[in-house]
């Protein structure tokens, strides 16, 4: 279905002319899609007075007036506005909140796929069914539970909440992958005397790395970008607030201070953008195999 296929015998210039409308359309779409983010990034590098005086495109049109560029916005946002501490908090929240559900889900998915036990079918159906439950259904009871256990505003509480909410999708995705491993492979390992634990750690886990990676990226992006769980169970104290929670606070307190908001927003985006661009392949594979996050 490439443009050239139907037109191999045409002269070169005519092929170019025929392909032009589609190319122009694609370039335009890409431009429209990118401009909002580009505008944010350009503005984050302009002094506050300039941002208020003219649109960001003016800076792009006169890129060599060096006085109009600054990194002071970032210094201010990282320090005084607390984004630096929020960055650390986000890392502390995100990594265990990604690792815990993956570990638990991998064990569970293996059991559902390769072990026989009573209630297996019903329990698996229940897990898949839980994909439907919106996070809103859990907010109130878990908050009450945490009040009793004194877990509100703690990292532990937040990891467990993220782990619990992420488990149905994790088990579902990993089961789809692990159950597809050829039966012969598993059985021959058992015949050689390997226990379930050995089969799991030495055979299944290495084979499941692509699926583990896809879910890891999902969960990482989900937790890093989350606002709701962070607001409810961690709160907005600078000691614990994650980057999205902090950014939301800044929108509330400095809604028109665009030099703060643009730099702050761009900072929250850096880590997910790097993770995403570096591991895009796994991410795309993940959404192609099971795109059903509730």
């Amino acid at each position, binding site marked *: 279905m490439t443009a050239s296929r139907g037109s191999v015998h045409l002269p070169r210039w005519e092929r170019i002319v025929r392909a032009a409308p589609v190319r122009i359309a*694609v370039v335009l779409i890409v431009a429209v899609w990118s401009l909002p983010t580009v505008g944010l990034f350009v503005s984050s590098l302009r002094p506050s007075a300039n941002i208020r005086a003219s*649109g960001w495109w003016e800076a792009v049109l006169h890129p060599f007036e060096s006085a109009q560029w600054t990194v002071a916005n970032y210094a201010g946002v990282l320090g005084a506005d607390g984004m630096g501490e929020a960055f650390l908090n986000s890392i502390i929240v995100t990594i265990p909140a990604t690792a815990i559900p993956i570990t*638990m889900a991998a064990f569970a998915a293996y059991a559902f796929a390769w072990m026989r036990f009573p209630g297996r079918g019903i329990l698996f159906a229940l897990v898949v069914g839980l994909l439907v439950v919106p996070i809103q259904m859990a907010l109130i009871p878990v908050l009450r539970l945490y009040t009793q256990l004194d877990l509100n505003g703690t990292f*532990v509480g937040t990891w467990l909440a993220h782990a619990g909410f992420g488990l149905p999708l994790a088990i579902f995705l990993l089961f789809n992958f692990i159950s597809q491993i050829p039966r012969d492979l598993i059985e021959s390992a058992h015949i050689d005397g390997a226990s379930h634990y050995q089969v799991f750690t030495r055979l299944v886990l290495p084979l499941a790395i692509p699926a583990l990676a896809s879910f890891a990226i999902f969960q990482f992006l989900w937790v890093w970008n989350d606002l709701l769980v962070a607001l409810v169970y961690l709160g907005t104290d600078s000691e614990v607030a994650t980057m999205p929670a902090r950014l939301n606070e800044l929108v509330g307190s400095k809604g028109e201070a665009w030099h703060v908001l643009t730099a702050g927003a761009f900072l929250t985006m850096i880590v997910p953008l790097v993770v995403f661009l570096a591991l895009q392949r796994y991410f795309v594979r993940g959404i192609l195999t099971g795109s059903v996050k509730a």
Partner: protein
Amino acid sequence: MTTTTTTRQRTSEPRGVVVARRVGAPLAGLAGLLAIGWAIGFLVEPDGPARLLAGIYGFVGLEGEAQAIRERGIPSLTSKLVLGVVALTVGVGAVWAVFIGANAAVERLGARWRAQVLPWVFIGPALLLLGAFLVFPMASTIGTSLSEGEGAAGNFGFVFSDASMLIALRNNVLWLLLATGGSVALGLVIAMLVDRVKREALAKTFIFLPMAISMVGAAVIWRFVYAWAPAGQPQIGGANAIWTAFGNDPVAWLQVPTLNTFALILIMVWLQTGFAMVILSAAIKGLPSEVIEAARIDGARESQVFFRIVVPMIRGSIITVATTIAIVVLKVFDIVFVTTGGRFESDVVANRMFTEFFRFRNFGHAAALAVVLFIAVVPIMVINVRNLRRQGIGS
């Protein structure tokens, strides 16, 4: 093959290693459990990191430094780093250690017992968490919506008759139709277009990139696009710059009722189109090219090829994409919360649920709103799962 050789080697391991493994694994499990217990206590304490550092300094003999920390505390950055290290070791390491220990304990049992107990060791932790964070809360929230606040009739009556709620419900319908429809239609068109250009992967990355951004970040990006200044002043927001260039008066996009909902829906379309494009593009590439070539040779126009052949053949993928996006859209919260906070008649159910729950502490109303959201999601999810079954995924 590699696994079979390693397992054979293990049976002929020296006795010392076998003993070490037998003793070591349960110890690791016990240590893991203790570590989790200790760490929860540690992480809940605000001055935990300072006490830990003081303890470590004291242990290695630096009594002076330890004393200084006990008296003056430590800088917040150091405290955070200590916390981070403990968090990672425990969150990642200890969870594994518990599995190792439990498994080792079970392997001591006789073969018959082992086969019966081991599955529960494997799924136990996951079931425990699912029970605590999804199953029990679900039942509890339904109970709250029926019995607390103004009782079942009052809570659900509020949801379906309060004037501001009716606006929120109407907005959710608008979101559901326009954000879902817009993302799927645009994703499909872009998937068809990029299929015909050379740098397809690069173009796709640009469209897909917003998927990585948080909704809070996207909300700030678009708040800037929609920024408004009185007529005559420089318009720094892209939308008003273009709008006023045609001689119109600037518009406060986020404050004019109903127009603001459309402006917010556009943010969601911007975020979700890339997702639709990736799945639909893969589906289009999976189509047998002979069918399409044959139609073209028979004289079908491109629009006919698109609507009569491509769309029906990728119907399954379109349903998957539409239902997945619809579920995200139904639960939209962050975008509204950060941009308008639900004011100017732009509220939606999930944002209202948060307001009732967190600001007003009206748990009866909040629970009823959550239940309504849940009931709205279920049929969409059923369509999604059935459709996946038909395609042979997840069965």
